[in-house]
């Protein structure tokens, strides 16, 4: 059953991805991207990566939909046809994809208990984190306690970036509206 769910979700994901490449209307791409994120997050959770799934849903379906739409507000909604030939980028992507697939051959099997990450410090964290930090979720305790300063720095960077993006979008929009008054709808 687990295999079936993963397989079907992966097939759906490929279908949506191909559609995203094919569709030229950027609004449709944003909607398709939202559907993609929901499917991807469900797949991640089916594979037990609960926190990654949560992030994917929040960032992919929530924040990036809003940000992409704000960006669309400033530009045209139809993708312009490419000026250059697509052959070279296509070949490059295929090559990179093949290299990545080749790289996965060396990875340990999914869920293998004998890998270094599961036998070395990972096991220590699982055993000791509740006693040491009293936080029930191990991922949270690693992020917020063992690596607390690191996470604080990250949060500060993301917060600054978010404010920057908001200021950029807001400033541009107001100027555009003022222009719109003079020229009519462009």
């Amino acid at each position, binding site marked *: 059953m687990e295999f079936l769910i993963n397989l079907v979700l992966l097939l759906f994901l490929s279908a949506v991805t191909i559609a995203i490449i094919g569709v030229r209307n950027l609004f449709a791409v944003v909607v398709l991207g939202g559907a993609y994120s929901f499917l991807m997050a*469900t797949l991640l959770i*089916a594979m037990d990566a609960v926190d990654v799934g949560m992030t994917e849903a929040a960032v992919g379906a929530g924040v990036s939909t809003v940000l992409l*739409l704000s960006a669309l507000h400033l530009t045209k909604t139809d993708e312009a046809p490419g000026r250059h030939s697509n052959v070279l980028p296509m070949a490059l992507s295929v090559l990179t994809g093949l290299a990545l697939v080749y790289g996965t051959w060396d990875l340990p099997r999914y869920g293998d208990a004998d890998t270094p990450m599961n036998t070395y410090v990972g096991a220590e964290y699982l055993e000791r984190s509740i006693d040491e930090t009293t936080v029930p979720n191990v991922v949270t305790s690693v992020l917020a306690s063992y690596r607390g300063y690191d996470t604080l720095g990250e949060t500060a960077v993301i917060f600054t970036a978010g404010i920057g993006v908001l200021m950029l979008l807001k400033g541009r929009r107001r100027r555009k509206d003022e222009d719109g008054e003079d020229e009519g709808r462009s």
Partner: protein
Amino acid sequence: MTMFTVAALALLVSLGLVLVRVLKGPSIFDRVIAGNSVGTLSVLLLAVIGYVFGRPEFIDLAITYALLNVIGTIAVLKFFRYGDLGVGEDEAGS
């Protein structure tokens, strides 16, 4: 076959059918409607998957999804209503 498997299969089938509508369009609104349904079905699938795998704690995530789904849909529609987005004629009408 347990009852959860049956429900999960039914949800996967409907997810597939709804995705056909997302991919086919034809208008952007059809895609938004179907995209909203994809979100709702993922919420359900997530809740059911938790029971299939014997870990009902996954339901917290389903709550997050339910919230994000509506935020995404409303965001898309707000920009439709208030933005002066020149939607291509072939995609705006049905």
